[in-house]
């Protein structure tokens, strides 16, 4: 399983994400945003958290128009896996790979704490290592995680079982407590919480590890 972690100016969770993927057995290459092509034979792309381009204009908007992002969209179009965490989720909504938008937290404050998270579906290669209804404790750290979807989109996400995770105690005003959503083909996941920060007992929790393990296993056994 070969994974690419995209690095933008202002990314700051890129190395954590690489370590989490390597720990699950992936071979990881870091790819600078100015590259226009991905390394060959990439199975999955991970877009890390951080503050790409200083969050100028809107979070993720400039990154969504970086040269490498065209290659990311093409990879997703071929049915490839893409995981976007925090700022990575914002980038994915800005590219249109995931629907909806992430707005300023309703409480206006940057929120940074260990968050209770509920697994809403196990029917994806990202979430198959969890059980539906399972409660996880995973850190959040963001200022713009308030997921916005109109009623039609919300009904569609629910009807197609595309809500991956919801918050236990909504920290940001997200509609329907949504913390993570899947694409139509279930190969693209965007989520605000940081599973890469809880993959080792030394982190105080390993609740994030099953996500990376399940994904790597899905690719290896495919």
């Amino acid at each position, binding site marked *: 399983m070969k994974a690419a972690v995209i690095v933008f100016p202002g990314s700051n969770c890129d190395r954590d994400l690489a370590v989490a993927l390597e720990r699950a057995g992936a071979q990881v290459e870091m790819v600078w945003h100015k590259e226009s092509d991905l390394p060959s034979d990439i199975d999955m792309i991970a877009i890390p958290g951080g503050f790409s381009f200083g969050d100028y204009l809107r979070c993720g908007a400039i990154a969504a128009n970086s040269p490498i992002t065209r290659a990311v969209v093409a990879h997703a179009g071929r049915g490839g896996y893409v995981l976007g965490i925090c700022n990575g989720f914002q980038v994915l909504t800005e590219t249109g790979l995931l629907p909806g938008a992430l707005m300023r937290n309703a409480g*206006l404050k940057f929120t940074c704490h260990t968050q209770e998270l509920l697994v809403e579906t196990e029917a994806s290669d990202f979430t198959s290592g969890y059980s539906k209804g399972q409660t996880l404790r995973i850190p959040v750290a963001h200022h713009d995680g308030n997921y916005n979807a109109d009623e039609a989109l919300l009904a569609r996400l629910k009807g197609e079982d595309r809500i991956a995770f919801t918050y236990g105690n909504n920290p940001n005003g997200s509609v329907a407590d949504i913390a993570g959503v899947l694409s139509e083909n279930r190969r693209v996941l965007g989520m605000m919480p940081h599973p890469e920060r809880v993959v080792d007992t030394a982190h105080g929790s390993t609740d994030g590890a099953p996500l990376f393990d399940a994904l790597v296993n899905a690719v290896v056994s495919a």
Partner: protein
Amino acid sequence: MKARVFVMLKNGVLDPQGEAVRHALGSLGFDGVDGVRQGKVIELTLSESDEAAARSTVTEMCEKLLANTVIESYRIELSA
């Protein structure tokens, strides 16, 4: 030619920053502010001199980058 692009959250999308400003105005004693919406203004200096062509290009810029049309609306003003 200059273009000014006004980007606002769409009607119906809650604007938490506007709400915070409204509360702050109330606590300063400015009564009667029923609503505040906060947006942004982007000024562009263009080499294009034809108004129709400029409007068409700036509209494309708004759709592709300057506004997120999922949650934001935009308005373009052109001047010589």
